Structures are given as C-alpha cells and as structure tokens.
C-alpha cells in the first residue's frame, strides 16, 4: 500500500509506524519523516518516488561510516600479517556464536586462525567456545584456572599467534553491561594489551548487537567505543522478527560500520552486511 498513492500525512503515519516498530527509535524516525515531509510540502511526491526517497535516506545513514572512513565495505583479514579481532558486547547477544562462525569463514577462506577464550568468568564459557573451535578445526588458547585474568589469556594467545604466524586471532570476551565500570575497565585493559603486544597487527574491535534489542543499543555503542576502541558492529539474530532498526542510530551517532549480519545459530549463518538488503528487509 505504501507507494500506491502520492506521499501524504496518512502515508507518513504508516511510515512512522513501520520505522518505530522496527526499533528505529523516535528521534531517528522523526528525522526521516521531516525530510519526507519537507519534500511533500515542496511538490507532489508520487508513491514510488517516496519509497525510493525513504530507502535512499536509510541506506545513506548506514553507508555513511564506511564512506567517511574511505574504508573497504567488505571486511576481511589482511593476508600475510597478524589480524586480531575482538568480539565485545553485553550479555547474551551472540559474541561466542559469531566468533565460531567467523573462525569457520576464516578457515574456508584459507586463513590460518586461532581462537582465544577471553571469557574467564561465565559458567561453561570456555567449553562452549571449544565446541565452536572444534567445528572448524581451529585451536583454542584458554586458561583452565578458575576466574583467570582475561588479560593473561589474551597475552598468551597473542604470543602463540605471533610464534605460529597466525593470520587471524579471534578473541572472545565476557558479556558485560556498559553500566559496570569495573568490567568496562577490564575490557579497556584487554584492548591496551592487544595494542601493546601486537602494535603491528591489524586490529578490529567488533561490537556485537542483538537485533531484538531496542534503544539501549546506542548507549552500548557509545560506552564500548570508549573502552574498547570499536571499529565495527555485528548485528545478530536477524533471522527473528526483529528488524534491527537501532542500527541507524548506532551508525549515525557512533559512526561505526556494520560489518556482518548473524542470521541463525548454525556455522554458516553469518554474512557480510549489505545496506541495500538490510533496508529492503526493514521495509518489507
């Protein structure tokens, strides 16, 4: 029905409902509507033109971080050097699972890969990661002692990666809410160790966001950017009904590119982010 008639207040209402229910948030939705309303007040905007306007605006918001960095829209480890990718984020969003998927992608793409069990706190976190590592035949570096210092695990893993000429070191970290200052400081310490021990490594610090979460995602991005020096976002659980609309606020406020999409619990349920596909799914 959107796109059948020229743009009107009624169709703006429909667009507002769609965006709000997709977790785009009140402020970002208002910005989108303002732009459309201004066009509507200048001239008649026919239905299909309105849809294209909307899609372009949404896509541009998501592509802006990559454009502003002049970065490669496709993230891949750089061949022939050490790449270190950290998975960070709040509890239960899919960091460990995503890491498992990335390890598999790395192996299938011909990279030598190593995984570090940086979550030394949660029950059976290391066992969970071990299963994922085994699924791709990737070795795991872990510290078996109870409540080990995650920094120590990362220290050991970087040493192992450097001595074995590993191309991609994937570091799992414990889930943590951004309101916990001591845990955010622990993460900052892990990041400092990476920078200090491997100054020549290509480092990616990826915030894992759960598409089913609401407006808190933006607060997470801002806080984790401070502690872990983020370079990108992975948006998980897009196989559910949630549309991940918080991605717009995160892209525009934190200027972070979305790098991958998690769409399932299986080994292959990960793909590079594509803003065209994302916006189509959002408006479906």
């Amino acid at each position, binding site marked *: 029905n959107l796109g059948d008639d020229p743009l009107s207040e009624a169709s703006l209402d429909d667009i507002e*409902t769609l965006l*709000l*229910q*997709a*977790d785009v*948030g*009140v402020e970002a939705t208002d910005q989108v509507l303002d732009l459309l309303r201004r066009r509507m007040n200048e001239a008649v905007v026919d239905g299909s033109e309105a849809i294209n306007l909307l899609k372009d605006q949404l896509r541009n918001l998501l592509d802006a971080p990559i454009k502003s960095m002049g970065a490669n829209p496709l993230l891949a480890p750089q061949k022939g050097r050490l790449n270190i990718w950290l998975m960070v984020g*709040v*509890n*239960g*969003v*899919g960091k460990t699972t995503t890491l498992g998927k990335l390890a598999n992608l790395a192996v299938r793409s011909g990279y030598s890969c190593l995984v570090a069990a940086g979550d030394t*706190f*949660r*029950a*059976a976190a290391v*066992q*969970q990661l*071990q*299963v*994922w590592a085994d699924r791709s035949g990737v070795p795991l570096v872990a510290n078996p002692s109870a409540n080990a210092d995650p920094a120590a695990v990362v220290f050991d893993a970087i040493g192992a990666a450097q001595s074995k000429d590993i191309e991609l070191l994937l570091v799992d970290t414990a*889930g943590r*809410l*951004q*309101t*916990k200052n001591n845990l955010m400081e622990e993460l900052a310490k892990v990041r400092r160790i990476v920078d200090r021990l491997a100054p020549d490594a290509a480092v990616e610090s990826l915030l894992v966001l*759960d598409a*089913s*979460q*609401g*407006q*808190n*995602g933006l*607060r997470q991005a801002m806080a984790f950017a401070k502690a872990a020096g983020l370079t990108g976002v992975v948006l998980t*659980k897009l*196989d*559910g*009904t*949630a549309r991940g*609309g*918080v991605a717009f606020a995160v892209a525009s406020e934190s200027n972070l590119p979305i790098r991958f999409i998690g769409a399932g*619990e299986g080994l292959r349920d990960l793909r590079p982010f594509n803003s065209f596909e994302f916006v189509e799914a959002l408006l479906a």
Partner: protein
Amino acid sequence: ELSQRFEDAVRGLKGEASISEGNVDSALKDVRRALLDADVSLPVVKSFIAEVREKALGADVVRGVSPDQQFIKLVHEELVEVMGGANAPLAKAEQSPTVVLMAGLQGAGKTTATAKLGLHLKEQGRRALLVAADTYRPAAIDQLQTLGQQIDVEVFSLGADAKPEAIAEAGLAKGREEGFDTVIVDTAGRLQIDTSMMEEMVRIRSAVAPDEVLLVVDSMIGQEAADLTRSFHEQVGITGAVLTKMDGDSRGGAALSIRKVSGAPIKFIGTGEKVEALQPFHPERMASRILG
C-alpha cells in the same frame, strides 16, 4: 531523556485551571514519545495513552493539586495498575513437585534464571531439581551443571543426544520419586516464528504439565516484546515472566508490553550475572524506571 520529556509533557499543563481536551493531547504526545523511548511496544503505547486520556479528562478537579501534578500522578498510577499492583510469587502446586518451565528467546537469561530460582527456593527451605533440557546450544548442559554445583542444587539431564521432552519427563519422574518439591526445566532459546521449535516447546509442556510457565525476557528488548509475548502466550501459555539484566540502564518498557499482551505478571527480575542476583518484581519501581 525520559524524565525531561515527561517534564516537558506536563509543562503544557502548568498554569492551566484543569486538564481539558484543549491541553491534554499535547501532554499525551510527549508521554507517547517517552514510552517509545523506553521500548514499550507501539500498540501497547497507543492503548495505554487512550486509557490515560479517558481517565485524565474524566478526573475530578482536585483542590490544591495543579493539573500538571495530577497528570503525572495519573500516568504513574495507571502504569502501576497495568503492571499488576502487588507482587506475584512463584507458583506452588498443592501436590509436590511444583513444575516450572522456562521459555524465551536466545540469550535472554533462561539458564541463569533457572539456577537463580533454584537458589531462591533453597533459601526458602525448599528443595529444587534443575532439569537441563537444552540439547542444542554447545555446553548448555555443562553451563547449568556448573551453576548447580556452585549453589549445591542438583541438576538432572539425559545429555544432548536425548530429546528435550524426554529429558523433561525423566526429570519430573526423578523429582517425584526423590521428593523434590520443585522441578525447574531449562529449555533452549527459540524464535517465536520457528514453527518446529515452538511445536517442541508445546511437546515439552505436555510432557510435564507445568504449574508455572515463565517467559524469560531480556529487559533491553525492543518493540518485539509484544509480538514475542503474544506468540508464546498463544502457543504455549505463559503464567509469569522474568525480566533479566535489570542491572543495566535499559528502561525496560517490555514490562508493560508483557503484562498488557498476556495478562501474566512479571514475577522476578534479574539484577546481575551472579546466581544471587534475583529479586521479586515491584510494579511501582518499574513504573518509575519506565517513566525515568
């Protein structure tokens, strides 16, 4: 911020003699924005606003109370009332064991909540058996067993090669035979649109005839809360909810959506990663949190 927006909402009412058709709608517009910022699902916001509007316009003028104060009080009271007045405790069956079934999306906090409830019951002098029926997630059974050891509460499972409904059934049998007064069944996270997994949940439910089905929901959840609750309620039937990760700074608007859509009370909140971090749900505190 929500509280700022709420102040803005009632600023329009300051200096007015009473709440009227002329001034209530702009105040309600701000409340609507505030609730959406708090992640309350849009349809729930709409019906809540409509109810508040009716009550606000129908309210008697209270001597000495300005309209803006009266409006704030009304919104707050309405929120508390919708979320269920007094606290609702965990079910207790007439015939032991009480059976509790945990359900919800991936990563919501079900396994942790299962252990938390086990400890909560232990502290009340009750004897819980935790049943590890998640055969999908790597090391899920290990996770519950590790938590059980930490709190010295027994965990039962048949292992990841068994069917979840068989594990649940065998767990209940053990619970009966060995005189546990409560059996809590942990299940795999699942999407409400995953037909085969929802059918599995229905089978697990049939196998153990629970006295309590708790929907475990991450308090950071967005608009999806209403649809999630509706699907689980229609397909499985929920009797209560646990709202987790309340130690964060999410507004937790899902609390309103869950209650509105299912009528089920939120019974507990998770307030941390540790097994001790479980508290009863208090509607007045939640109302203040949602409103900022």
